[in-house]
C-alpha cells in the first residue's frame, strides 16, 4: 500500500501540469502515423534534462500510456495502425468507422484502453516481485514456441480462408528474412540498399494497411463523382460504457492476455493486441461478426494493448533489463538523473518510483476523459470526401514512414509493399496475417538459433525444446490451436473475400 502515500505528489501543480501535457501531447503524437510510442518517448527525453527525476518520469510515463491509446485514433479513422500494438484495432475499428460508427469505435477503444491500462498498472503495483520471476521464466525455447503459437493463429486471422491466411503469413515470414540476419550477420535478399537493415515493421504496417485503401478510394473517386457522404452516427458516452460492460468476455480476455504477454521481454507489446483479438474471436458466440465492424474486436484489442503497458515495465523496474524498446528509452530517462532501476529505485528513491507509477494510473483515466472528448469530433473525419481523404492519408503515410529513421528507403518499402498488398487484397488476401508473419519471423528464428546453440553445447536439441513444464504447456496450446483451426475450417464454408463477408453480414 506504499503507493498510496505518494498519491499527493501527482497532484502538485507542476506535476499535474506535466501529466496533462504528457497525456494530451501523447494522444496527438500517438494519433500521428509513424510516431510509435518508442519514438514519442524518445522525442520527449531532452525535455526531461531540465526537470527533476520524478517530474521527468511523469511526463514520459503519461506520454507512454497515451501514445499507445492514441494509436487507435489513426487505426480506426484512417486504417493506419500507428504501431504494431494497434493492428488488431484496425480490423473491426475501421470497418465501424466506414459504417459511420467512428465515434462509437473510438469511445469503446478509449474506455477499454483505460480499463485494461488501470488493471495493468495495478498488477505492476501489487505483483511486481512475482511478475519479475515470470518474466525471466521465458528462455529461447519458450519464446520459440510462443512465436509458433502466434504463427498458428495466422490462418484464422481476418482472412477469407485458412489457406489464404497461411499464404500471406508466409509472405510475411519471407519478408522478415530480408536484411542482415540478427544473429550470424549473414546477408539475405539484400537487392537494394534500402532493405539492408531489413524491413522495418512501422513503414511496412503503414504501407500494407493504408496504401491499398488509398488506391481503392482513388479508384472509386473516378467512378462516382458525387462523393458518398457517410452519415456519422452520434453516440452517447453512457451507451458506450454500457456496451463495454456488456462485452465482459472480450474485455476480460483482452485484459488478461495483454497483461500476461506484455510481461514477456521482447515479444509482448507487438503481438498482445493480435493474440487477444484472435482469442476473443474464438471464444465468442458471435465469432462470424468479427472483421465486419464488431465491437468485441475493438474492445479486446485495445484492452490488451494498454493492459500491456504496466507489466511491460516490470523487467525494467525490478531487474534493470528493458523488456521493450520503449522501456529502453525510459531507462535512459532514469539514468540521466543518476537513478538505477532495480532495488535501488524502490529502496532509495521511492518517491520517484511511486510517483511515476501513480501518474501512469491517473494518466490512464485522464487519457480516457480526453479521448472521449475528442472521439465525437474526430469521427467526423468520415464525412471527408474520398478524393480528399485519399490525398491526406497518402501524405500522412509518406510522412510517417519517412520519419521512422529519416530514410527514403523506408518510403520505397512502404510504397512497394502497399501496391503489392492492393493486388493481394483483390484476391482475398489480407494484411493482418502478413504483418503477423513479419513480426513473428525474427522472434521465432532468432530464438531457435540461440536455443539450438545453447542446446548443442549442453544436453541436445530434443531435451532443450521438448522438456520442461512451460515447453510442454506451450506445445499443447499450439496443437490445440491448430486442431481448432482445422475443425473450424471443415465446419463452415468461408466467404471468398472479406468484402463478401461484409456484404453478407449487412444483408442479414
Amino acid at each position, binding site marked *: 500500500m506504499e503507493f498510496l502515500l505518494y498519491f499527493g505528489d501527482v497532484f502538485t501543480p507542476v506535476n499535474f501540469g506535466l501529466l496533462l501535457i504528457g497525456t494530451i501531447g501523447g494522444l496527438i503524437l500517438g494519433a500521428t502515423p509513424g510516431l510509435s510510442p518508442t519514438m514519442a518517448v524518445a522525442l520527449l527525453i531532452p525535455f526531461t534534462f531540465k526537470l527533476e527525476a520524478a517530474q521527468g518520469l511523469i511526463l514520459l510515463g503519461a506520454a507512454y500510456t497515451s501514445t499507445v491509446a492514441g494509436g487507435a485514433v489513426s487505426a480506426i479513422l484512417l486504417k493506419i495502425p500507428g504501431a504494431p500494438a494497434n493492428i488488431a484495432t484496425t480490423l473491426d475499428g475501421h470497418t465501424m468507422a466506414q459504417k459511420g460508427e467512428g465515434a462509437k469505435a473510438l469511445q469503446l477503444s478509449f474506455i477499454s484502453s483505460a480499463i485494461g491500462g488501470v488493471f495493468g498498472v495495478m498488477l505492476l503495483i501489487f505483483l511486481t516481485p512475482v511478475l519479475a520471476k515470470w518474466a525471466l521464466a521465458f528462455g529461447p525455447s519458450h519464446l520459440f514456441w510462443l512465436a509458433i503459437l502466434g504463427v498458428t493463429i495466422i490462418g484464422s486471422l481476418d482472412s477469407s480462408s485458412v489457406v489464404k491466411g497461411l499464404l500471406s503469413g508466409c509472405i510475411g515470414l519471407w519478408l522478415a528474412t530480408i536484411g542482415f540476419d540478427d*544473429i550470424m550477420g549473414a546477408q539475405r535478399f539484400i537487392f537494394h540498399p534500402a532493405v539492408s*537493415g531489413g524491413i522495418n515493421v512501422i513503414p511496412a504496417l503503414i504501407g500494407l494497411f493504408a496504401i491499398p485503401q488509398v488506391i481503392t478510394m482513388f479508384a472509386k473517386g473516378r467512378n462516382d463523382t458525387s462523393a458518398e457522404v457517410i452519415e456519422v452516427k452520434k453516440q452517447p458516452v453512457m451507451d458506450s460504457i454500457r456496451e463495454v460492460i456488456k462485452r465482459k468476455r472480450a474485455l476480460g480476455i483482452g485484459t488478461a492476455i495483454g497483461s500476461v504477454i506484455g510481461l514477456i521481454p521482447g515479444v509482448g507489446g507487438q503481438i498482445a493486441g493480435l493474440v487477444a483479438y484472435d482469442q476473443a474471436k474464438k471464444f465468442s458466440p458471435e465469432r462470424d461478426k468479427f472483421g465486419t465492424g464488431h465491437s468485441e474486436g475493438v474492445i479486446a484489442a485495445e484492452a490488451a494493448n494498454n493492459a500491456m503497458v504496466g507489466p511491460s515495465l516490470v523487467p525494467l523496474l525490478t531487474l534493470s533489463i*528493458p523488456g521493450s524498446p520503449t522501456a529502453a*528509452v525510459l531507462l535512459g530517462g532514469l*539514468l540521466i538523473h543518476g537513478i538505477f532501476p532495480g532495488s535501488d529505485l524502490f529502496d532509495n528513491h521511492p518517491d520517484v518510483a511511486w510517483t511515476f507509477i501513480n501518474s501512469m494510473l491517473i494518466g490512464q483515466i485522464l487519457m480516457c476523459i480526453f479521448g472521449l472528448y475528442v472521439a465525437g469530433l474526430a469521427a467526423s473525419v468520415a464525412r471527408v470526401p474520398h478524393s480528399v481523404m485519399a490525398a491526406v492519408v497518402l501524405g500522412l503515410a509518406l510522412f510517417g514512414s519517412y520519419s521512422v529513421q529519416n530514410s527514403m528507403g523506408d518510403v520505397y518499402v512502404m510504397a512497394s509493399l502497399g501496391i503489392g498488398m492492393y493486388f493481394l487484397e483483390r484476391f482475398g488476401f489480407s494484411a493482418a496475417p502478413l504483418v503477423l508473419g513479419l513480426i513473428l519471423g*525474427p522472434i521465432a528464428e532468432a530464438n531457435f538459433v540461440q536455443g539450438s*546453440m545453447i542446446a548443442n553445447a549442453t544436453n541436445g536439441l530434443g531435451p532443450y525444446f521438448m522438456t520442461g513444464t512451460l515447453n510442454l504447456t506451450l506445445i499443447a496450446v499450439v496443437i490445440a490451436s491448430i486442431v481448432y483451426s482445422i475443425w473450424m475450417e471443415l465446419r463452415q464454408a468461408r466467404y471468398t473475400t472479406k468484402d463478401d463477408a461484409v456484404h453478407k453480414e449487412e444483408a442479414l
Partner: protein
Amino acid sequence: MKNLFAGAAIALMGLTGTAYADGHANYPERPVMMMVSYGAGGATDFQARIVTMTAGNEDALGMPIAIINKPGAGGRVGWNWLATQAEADGYTLGAYNVPHFIAQSIKGGVEYSADSFEPIANWGADPAVFVVGADSEMNSMTDVVDFAKANPGKLTFSGAGLFVGHHIAALQLEKAAGVKMAYIPSNAGGAGAMKSVIAGEVMGGVNNLSDAFRAAAAGNVKILGVFDLERNEFLPDVPTLKEQGFDIDNASVNFRGVMVPKGTPQGIIDKLAASVPAMFENGRVAGKMKAGGSPMHVMNREEVLEMWAAREATLKELLAGL
C-alpha cells in the same frame, strides 16, 4: 555529383568574399546532425545525447547537434549510410563504436572501412566484463576457465552479437586460456545478453561494464573480470583479466566517439578536432555521464587515429581464423 556541388560551393565562396582564410571560419552556420547507428534508448544513443547537449554553447560549436538514429544490422545500416550517402560538408557527423565497425569491415559485406571516415574525438570507453549469475558457483575467472577445460565447448556464455566488443573479448579469452567455450550471441543487444545471464539460460556472459555495474548493484550478477589494461574506477575491487593471469589487452573495449565521412573539408575537421574534446570535458556533461554509470574517456583526433590503427591490426589477426 557531390564533387560538382563542392566545386560550385568553392567557386561561390571565391566570389562572395575573402573574409575567411580557409572558407570555414564561420562553420557551423546552422545546426549540425549526428548519426547514431543504434536505436533510440541504447547506450550509444543515450551517451551521444548527453555529450552533445552543450554543443549550442558559445564556447563549444555555437550550434546545437541533433541526433538522428539509423539503426539496423548491428550498426551496419548507419555506417553504410554515412560512408556512401551522407554529405561530407561538415554538417553530418557520425558516432562510431570501435571495435564494432572495424571488425565488421574486416569481416566484409559492408561498404566502409576505417579509411572511409575521419575521426574527430573520443568520448567514452566502456570495457567488457565477464559476469555470472548471482547464485553461480564460479567466483573468479580461474573457476570459469577450469570449468571450460573440464567440459570443452560446454560452457555457455552470452554477448551482444557477433563482431562486437563482447565477441572480441570472448575470442581473446578462448585464445589466452586455450579453451573452447560456447559463445551465444544475443539478438537483443547487451540487454538481451544480460537477461539470459540473470535468468540462468546461460552460465555466464560478456557484457558492458556500465550495464553490468547496474545489474551487480541490484544484486543480480557477479562481475568476475574486466577486459581492460587497468581496473575501472566504477569497479575498483574487480581485477582485470591480465591480473588473473590471462594475456588480454584492451582490444574489446567499446570506444565511442565522433567521426565525419572522408572528404569533409580539412578546415572543418581541424575546427571540430579543436573544439569537440573541450565540449566533452564540460562539467555538466561529465556529471550526467557519471550519474548514468557511463565511463568517460576523452581522446583527441591524433590519439583516436592511433587507436583505430592499433585496433585494426589486432582485429585482423584475431579474426583471421574465423
